[in-house]
Structure formats: structure tokens, C-alpha cells
């Protein structure tokens, strides 16, 4: 028999749909379509290819900007965490960049570089980068000096030290930065697309807003929530399991 605990997530989802359905029927308004109507719009979007196209474009921007931000952020974070002088010098820069509103960076990037793809990517990267740097810097500060001394004493090469001593200790911080990064970047990308691109989810949502098409907005929203869940289940969770297999 399946245990109640396993059924609970499914039941809660059903309850959510039931409440939504009840409200939609009761209000009978175009601004709150029923789940069925949203599913229909979603299906039409899939059949026409519009939804996968815009979702794909946004996903591509996500992958590119996320990769750049994570790679740069990890490298800079490790350097700042290991070098007190550089950290003291750049700390103020970080605070400044952390506190610039996302909208300001996006507008400035478009004004300075034009309404082009690279400006869009740059705007997302600049928004995400300081977060990654700060998280990885904190992680680097907590590195176990005893293990680093052991590596030095046994003449580990730089690469060996990075891969076998430093990286496994940073892993929880990298995963933290990845999860918070995905959530943040999604949101910023939509604004970037809304303001200056002619495709992608943000652009589509803007269009639906002008048409007051709430069913369209909800259909696209659920599509990308589903994609993020898939990334979590298919990529992040297995990575977590693999890297934590040594724990008791």
C-alpha cells in the first residue's frame, strides 16, 4: 500500500487546483480563467510551436548568462576568499554592485550597448555575478586550513588541490549559488526581454498583458515553473546525491 506521506504532494496539488477551479467558477471573470482554460491555451501554444519557441529562447539566455555568471563568480569568489588584500580593495565594489537595482543595470546596458542580445546577456550577468562572488567568497573563507596544509606538505599540484581539496568543500556553496541564481536569473531575464527583446517569455508576457490575456500569462508561467522543477529534479538533485555520497 502506498503510504500517506507519498500521496501528500499529489493531494496538495489537487487541492490547489480544486480551490482555483472553485474560485474561477464562483467569480466567473475573464481575469481568472479556470485551470481547464489555461490547459487549453497551453496546449494550443505547444501545438502552434509558439510556447516552446519562446520558452526555448529564454532558456538559452538563461543557460548562457547563468554559465558566465557562475564561472566568473566562482573564480573571483575563490580569489577574493584567499587573498585578504584584494578582498579589502574590491569589497566596496561588491557592495555597490549588490545594491544596484536590476532595472537600472538593464536600462543602462540597453542605453550604452543598444537593444542587442549581448547587452541583454550582460545585464543578467551583472545582476547575478555579485551574488555568486559573495557566496563563494564566504565558502572559501571557511576552507579547512588543516587539509590545505596537508595538500601543501604532500606537494599537491594547484590543479589537484583545487579539484580534490577546495572544490568539494565549496560544493554546498556552489549549489546554494546555483539554486538562488536560477530563481533570480529567471526573474531578471523576463524583465530584460520585456524591455528590449522581441522574443522570449518576457516579450510574450508583455504582449498578453496588453491584450489582458490572463490565461496566456498563466499558461506560460506554469510552463516555466515546470521547467525549473525539471532542472531541479534532473540535474541538481542527482548532482547533490553524487557529491554527498561520502557522508554517513
Amino acid at each position, binding site marked *: 500500500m502506498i503510504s500517506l506521506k507519498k500521496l501528500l504532494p499529489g493531494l496538495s496539488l489537487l487541492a490547489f487546483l480544486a480551490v482555483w477551479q472553485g474560485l474561477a467558477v464562483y467569480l466567473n471573470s475573464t481575469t481568472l480563467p479556470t485551470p481547464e482554460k489555461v490547459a487549453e491555451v497551453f496546449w494550443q501554444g505547444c501545438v502552434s510551436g509558439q510556447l516552446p519557441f519562446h520558452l526555448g529562447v529564454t532558456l538559452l539566455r538563461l543557460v548562457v548568462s547563468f554559465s558566465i555568471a557562475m564561472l566568473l563568480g566562482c573564480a573571483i569568489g575563490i580569489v577574493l576568499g584567499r587573498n585578504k588584500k584584494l578582498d579589502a580593495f574590491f569589497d566596496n565594489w561588491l557592495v555597490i554592485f549588490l545594491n544596484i537595482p536590476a532595472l537600472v543595470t538593464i536600462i543602462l546596458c540597453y542605453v550604452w550597448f543598444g537593444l542587442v542580445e549581448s547587452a541583454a546577456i550582460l545585464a543578467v550577468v551583472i545582476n547575478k555575478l555579485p551574488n555568486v562572488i559573495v557566496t563563494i567568497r564566504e565558502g572559501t573563507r571557511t576552507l579547512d586550513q*588543516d*587539509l590545505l*596544509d*596537508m595538500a*601543501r*606538505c*604532500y*606537494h*599537491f*599540484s594547484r590543479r*589537484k588541490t583545487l579539484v*580534490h*581539496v577546495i572544490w*568539494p568543500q565549496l560544493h554546498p556553496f556552489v549549489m546554494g549559488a546555483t539554486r538562488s541564481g536560477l530563481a533570480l536569473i529567471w526573474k531578471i531575464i523576463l524583465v530584460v526581454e520585456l524591455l528590449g527583446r522581441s522574443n522570449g517569455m518576457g516579450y510574450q508576457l508583455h504582449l498578453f498583458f496588453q491584450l489582458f490575456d490572463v490565461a496566456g500569462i498563466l499558461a506560460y508561467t506554469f510552463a516555466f515553473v515546470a521547467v525549473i522543477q525539471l532542472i531541479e529534479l534532473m540535474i541538481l538533485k542527482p548532482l547533490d546525491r553524487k*557529491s554527498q*555520497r*561520502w*557522508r*554517513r
Partner: protein
Amino acid sequence: MTHIRIDIHSKTYPAVGQAGHHLAIANLNLSFKAGEFVCLVGPSGCGKTTLLNIIAGLDNDYQGEILVGQQHTRPKIGYIFQNPRLLPWRTVRENIELALDNHQSSAIIDPLLEAMQLTQAQNVYPERLSLGMSRRVSIIRGFAVDPDVLLMDEPFVSLDAPTARQVRELLLKLWQQRPHTVLFVTHDLREAIALADRLIFLSAAPMAVISEIIVTIPRAERHNEDAIESFRQQLFNEHSEIKQLL
């Protein structure tokens, strides 16, 4: 194997807060013959770990020099720390392999695992090992790099007596097969007598040599507790300066 000479003029720790400079080591001259097992005995806080860290090249902030043979080169070091310092995310075998840089590691590691009775545990992660087993892995890693000098910093501390005795015997057996120069730090005089060719007694900071004593008990009789105890009593009777240290 190489002769090693240590000549440290001074090692000071900078002032922290209200406390002034701390002179940890002053005019320390030691030399070790190839293949010699030397125990450094001294009160806790006298700077024994500092000395090992200097020899290992982990602490370069001192006046003096470390000479291996005739060359002014860094000796190849095997360091068995007080805490085993294994990488928890690598298996026992991987932990040992990482210390080696050649690809014929099996030929080196397998006999060592067998000697330390760890062949069964080679693919286990360190968190699943007992402290005694972790210490043995750390000893294997030290021997595996074929060091000029093996540094051991109270490697049997906080083990229960039977386990400590077992690991000590395994260590001695291994060392007799592979006689590396060993510097073994301890504050347990019985342990030192059971292991060493020579005992070096060190003073409280600033560290200096108080006396050096050759252990005359033959190796074959070292397992005899009475022989160890009578040697210890004899030491106390003949060298009153040692008694104050321990």
C-alpha cells in the same frame, strides 16, 4: 636516504592584542642520521608542532635553515598529523593515491594496505572508519611517498590503550621493513621509549634541547612493559632535569 640537520636560530610569533612577541624556539640544533627513529619529548605547548611544521615547510617564517644531505633543498616529507587529515570525500585508497604523483601507485599502496591491515577498507570513505583505522591510513600515506623524513605529531593520542598499542606495533613493523628517518613527537615517555632509537628532551618555550638519550633496550625486548618501566625509572634517577618536564 639522507642525513638531516636542523639549525633554527629563532622562531617568534608576532604580538597579538596585549600579549607581546612570543619566542617559540631559540638556537635549536638537531641532527638525524638516516633511518633513525627519534622521539621528541617535551611539555605541551613547548613548540613541538611548530618545529614539525617548519621542517615540513608549512611555516617559513623563521630564522635558520634545514639541511637535507648536502643540498639546501626541501626534504620530501611524510607528515602524520595529530588529526589524520584525510579528505572525507575521497576513499581510503584515493586519499593515499593523491599523495603520490606516479601512476604505478598499486605497487606502492597494496603492500602498505596489507601491512596496516586495511586492504578490506580501501574503498571506504573515511567517515566510516574508526579513529584507529584513520590513523593507520594516515601512516600509510606518510610511508607511501617514500619520504626523506617522516614526521609524526602525537599520532596515537586519544586512542584507547589496546588500539594505540596495536597501531604502534604495526608502525614499528612497517618501519623495520622500510627504515625511514622518523621524528616522532610525544609527551608519553613510555611510548617514546618503546619506539625510539634516541630520545630528545625539549624544554618549555623558547624550545631548546635539554638532553639526548640513546634507548639501549634491544628492539626485540621493546614489547616488554617491565623493561620499558625500568628504563624510565633509570632515566628519572640519572637525569633529574627530565622529571620536571613531564
